[in-house]
């Protein structure tokens, strides 16, 4: 009865990464790898519509100057593999770093309610090195397969491929600076996470409030870093693919996308852990608030998505509308379905499903909404990255499924490993007592 009569639950819980889970994840990765290989083989044989579209693109190249991708660079099927690696790396890097983002703003706000499940967001950024390495290797070795501005001679006035608009962006979009930025992003994100993680694990052993106050400082430092790097990394990793086009909303838009996907991952992990008998101290009020987070930030994403769309739609400037033209009706309309799936899974479904109080307190409904958001935001990055990289040669087949499976299983493996490294509930967190009694009625 009421907040003052909660049953006292044990905070001593050790997560076990069972052999069965490991086997299932390995099977998942095996299937993923097999799908990628089969898909790659089919692509190399010119399966699907690849070849005709390729030919058509060449035929149309003469009068398709507005298409950013016909600058003398022929399409090769491996581009689709690279583009897929890029989509998944960007998406999962975002989800990982949002774990750190969540911890940081909870420290800065000195929030109490989230202490009990803090280990879950804390486990997420451990995956960062994998997408980081993939992104940096691709950028260095195959950057010109993805980025229009990395094409040979694009900034050289004497070259036939010279593009004055892109050359004008040379101050920011040049290879050395780009590589430095990539290293800085991942280095800062991962490095600051390591500091916070170490402080948190140490706090479990020594108690006290010293580590808590240090964490607030490092969390705040991360937020300052992320305030800048979330926007610039969104330009670098996603927006600069369509080099001619730009949107001042794009940084926020990508942050909103990453953030809500990260929140859905957290919620889904917590609900799953609870179903497996862990995190007994997480009560309906915690789930309710996590549900509110997912609900609120799926609306926030929609708001930013729509704000970006409406300005471009209303102003009707050709150099801006081309972005939506390509997705809505370009390339034989192959991106129209993901374009709408994006809006339905990321806005309509979570909005309607998570609206009532009871739905946010029901595990199964939370799971449905979280899956919808996670699949939806994969398609968000898919629709943002694919048209500019593979254009008419895109699609959704074995390669796409395979890579998602590989990355998802890898991510779950990484999170599970991190969860085993400490008590599942931060037993000496100064706010734990408040969190255990969290009650939003």
């Amino acid at each position: 009865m009421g907040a003052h009569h909660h049953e006292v639950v044990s905070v001593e819980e050790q997560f076990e990464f069972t052999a069965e889970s490991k086997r299932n994840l390995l099977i998942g990765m095996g299937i993923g790898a097999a799908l990628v290989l089969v898909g790659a083989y089919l692509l190399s044989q010119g399966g699907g519509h690849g070849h005709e579209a390729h030919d058509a693109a060449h035929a149309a190249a003469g009068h398709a100057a507005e298409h950013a991708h016909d600058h003398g660079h022929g399409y090769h099927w491996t581009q689709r593999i690279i583009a897929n690696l890029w989509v998944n790396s960007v998406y999962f890097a975002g989800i990982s770093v949002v774990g750190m983002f969540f911890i940081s703003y909870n420290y800065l706000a000195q929030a109490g309610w989230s202490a009990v499940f803090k280990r879950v967001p804390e486990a997420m950024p451990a995956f960062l090195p994998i997408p980081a390495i993939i992104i940096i290797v691709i950028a260095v070795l195959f950057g010109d397969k993805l980025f229009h501005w990395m094409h040979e001679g694009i900034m050289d006035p004497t070259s036939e491929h010279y593009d004055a608009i892109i050359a004008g962006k040379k101050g920011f979009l040049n290879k050395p600076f780009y590589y430095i930025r990539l290293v800085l992003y991942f280095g800062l994100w991962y490095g600051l996470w390591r500091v916070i993680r170490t402080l948190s694990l140490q706090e479990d052993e020594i108690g006290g409030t010293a580590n808590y106050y240090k964490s607030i400082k490092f969390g705040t430092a991360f937020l300052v870093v992320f305030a800048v790097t979330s926007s610039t990394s969104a330009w670098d990793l996603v927006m600069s693919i369509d080099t001619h086009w730009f949107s001042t909303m794009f940084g926020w838009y990508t942050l909103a996308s990453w953030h809500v996907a990260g929140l859905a991952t957290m919620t889904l992990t917590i609900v799953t852990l609870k179903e497996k008998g862990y995190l007994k101290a997480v009560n309906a009020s915690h789930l309710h608030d996590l549900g509110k987070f997912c609900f609120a930030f799926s609306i926030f994403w929609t708001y930013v998505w729509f704000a970006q769309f409406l300005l471009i739609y209303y102003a009707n400037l050709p150099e801006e509308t081309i972005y939506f033209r390509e997705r809505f009706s370009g390339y034989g309309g192959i991106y129209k379905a993901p374009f709408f799936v994006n809006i339905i899974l990321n806005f309509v479904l979570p909005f309607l499903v998570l609206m009532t109080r009871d739905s946010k307190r029901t595990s199964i409904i939370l799971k449905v909404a979280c899956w919808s958001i996670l699949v939806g935001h994969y398609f968000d990055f898919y629709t943002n990255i694919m048209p500019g990289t593979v254009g008419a040669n895109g699609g959704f087949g074995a390669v796409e499924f395979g890579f998602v499976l590989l990355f998802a299983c890898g991510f779950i493996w990484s999170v599970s490993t991190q969860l085993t490294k400490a008590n599942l509930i931060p037993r000496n967190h100064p706010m734990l007592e408040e969190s255990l009694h969290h009650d939003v009625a």
Partner: protein
Amino acid sequence: MTDINKKFLVGVYDDDDVVLSAVGKLKNSGVKIYEVYSPFAIHGMDIAIGHPRTRIGIAAFCFGCTGFLCALLLTTWTMGIDWPMVIGGKDPISLPNYVPVMFELTVLFTAFGMTISFFITNGLGPTVKPLLFDPRCTDNKFVMAIDLSKNKLSEAEIASIVKASGAEEVSIKQL
């Protein structure tokens, strides 16, 4: 309000924890509580008293839908039918243009609708004299009101139960 000419037993408490546990004790003794007044929200109080869950959420949804439909009608009729206007080369009736208006009117109708519903259901408003059992409930005391006509137990019995539950003062108030 329909509480005219009713006799209330009023208990004044000093502590929010005491008043919350007192509610449980009174309910166990079979006393029906009319309301508890507090300077701040006490978590779990409405559940303890046994108030039914608020339906303001359902009202909010209905008001929101009304606002959405009104905005759709307003924009479609004025911009598309009564005086069709082409702006930015778009069709007179083009939904993306209308979204900001639909959003704003949804919010406006919901906000006003909820506020007005809240005022009506709680008997608040200009010129309405608020039901105040003890003015100290706006400052530092917690005030419990028990409608004697709704209770089978005698006035003396209830008074002793309330005293035993930790009340500092017990008085009778006629409204």
